[in-house]
């Protein structure tokens, strides 16, 4: 099975680790993520006003690219790895579904592009893993069970809000937990799992982000998490650098590593996981703790 895949800006730079791991995970699980040949920024944040259409154009272009590629691959799906891309593309898509007039206007405006027909289905990588592959199938392919490893799955906001685009329960999501359980890890229930990490406020109001990070991490640490796992490159950045600042200020006792779900999947599913285990020595130690 081949899926059209939209990376977005961050996965090519600071989130590169996530992309590399996810593409490999896909191969191990028997599907392929085919990157769109040309793509533009998705817009990052969905414009919430009722009267500005220009902000939706970049997302619309990406949807048209997906439509073109989908014809070749005979699918109407578009997979994203980044939570914010998922959120924006899905909200724009939904807006067109609910307002055919707006779709018509945009098609008239972008007359050098082919018309967008409004039938692309946006999926996050997690959704593909959970719905199309399934935890059972993942469990069957595990080479290194993550026994002893206490993992805190952190979702953040963009996968679950607003309700119209959520692919899991808004207040008690279980998709990541189910996948992690399939890998043999011990999943921790953190009440802060759907809290915001502060997002782009890292640029203008770092203190607000540190407040958010402190709440999330403290709840995670008091439950004994060895590692926090997230699908979002911005959450990963905020939680990692936020913890560093908080640790320097003495507001937390130790720093919990924050890694991408795809990296943990590689460690568990791949034979060649030595590179990752070298980077994440704490996981290696934990795995060895269970007696070899």
């Amino acid at each position, binding site marked *: 099975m081949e899926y059209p895949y939209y990376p977005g800006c961050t996965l090519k730079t600071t989130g590169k680790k996530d992309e590399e791991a996810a593409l490999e995970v896909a191969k191990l699980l028997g599907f392929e993520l085919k990157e769109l040949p040309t793509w533009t920024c998705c817009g990052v944040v969905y414009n919430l006003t009722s009267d500005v259409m220009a902000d939706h154009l970049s997302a619309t272009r990406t949807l048209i690219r997906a439509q073109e590629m989908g014809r070749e691959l005979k699918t109407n799906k578009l997979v994203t790895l980044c939570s914010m891309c998922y959120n924006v593309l899905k909200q724009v898509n939904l807006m067109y579904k609910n307002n055919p007039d707006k779709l018509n206007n945009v098609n008239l405006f972008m007359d050098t592009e082919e018309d967008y027909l409004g039938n692309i289905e946006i999926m996050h990588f997690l959704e593909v893993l959970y719905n199309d592959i399934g935890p059972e199938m993942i469990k069957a392919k595990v080479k290194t069970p993550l026994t002893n490893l206490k993992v805190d799955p952190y979702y953040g*906001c963009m996968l679950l809000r607003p309700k119209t685009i959520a692919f899991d329960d808004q207040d008690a999501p279980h998709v990541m937990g189910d996948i992690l359980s399939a890998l043999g890890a011990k999943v921790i229930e953190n009440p802060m799992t759907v809290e915001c990490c502060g997002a782009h406020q890292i640029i203008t109001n770092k203190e607000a982000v540190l407040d958010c990070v402190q709440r999330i991490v403290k709840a995670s640490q008091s439950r004994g998490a060895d590692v926090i796992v997230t699908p979002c490159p911005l959450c990963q950045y905020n939680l990692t650098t936020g913890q560093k600042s908080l640790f320097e200020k003495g507001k937390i006792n130790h720093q919990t590593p924050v890694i991408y779900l795809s990296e943990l999947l590689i460690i568990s599913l791949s034979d060649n996981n030595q590179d990752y285990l070298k980077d994440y020595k704490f996981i290696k130690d934990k795995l060895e703790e269970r007696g070899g």
Partner: protein
Amino acid sequence: MVFTVSEKGLELRKNVEEISGQNIFQCYQCGKCSATCPVVDSMDMAPNKIIRFVQMGDLEVLDQNTFWVCAACFTCSARCPRSVDIAKIMEALRNVMLRNKQDFINIYSKEFIEKMIEEIPQMAIVAAIKKGVW
């Protein structure tokens, strides 16, 4: 006591309602949005109070940092018992300022350019620009 709303106050209320597509009088001031907001501690004025000020057409609302601090995480919108999309109202207030040529971020400032050199993910930079610059 008779309470009158100024012309400008009425205009602000109308603009916020038009841009957000929300009925501001749906709000009955329970304060759930402020209780659930993850960044409320950094705000000059709690979100429910902001909505009250817009209802009353009080222009002081535009001097607060609340809508700039809002990270648009949609927690308030998800939990409002009256289904008011508060995130949209915050976006409307940002837009009232931005359309009036009052940007929150100066992208040519030294501070901002230094941020670009740090290893901050692009998505954060683009998001901040989209929320704070017209």
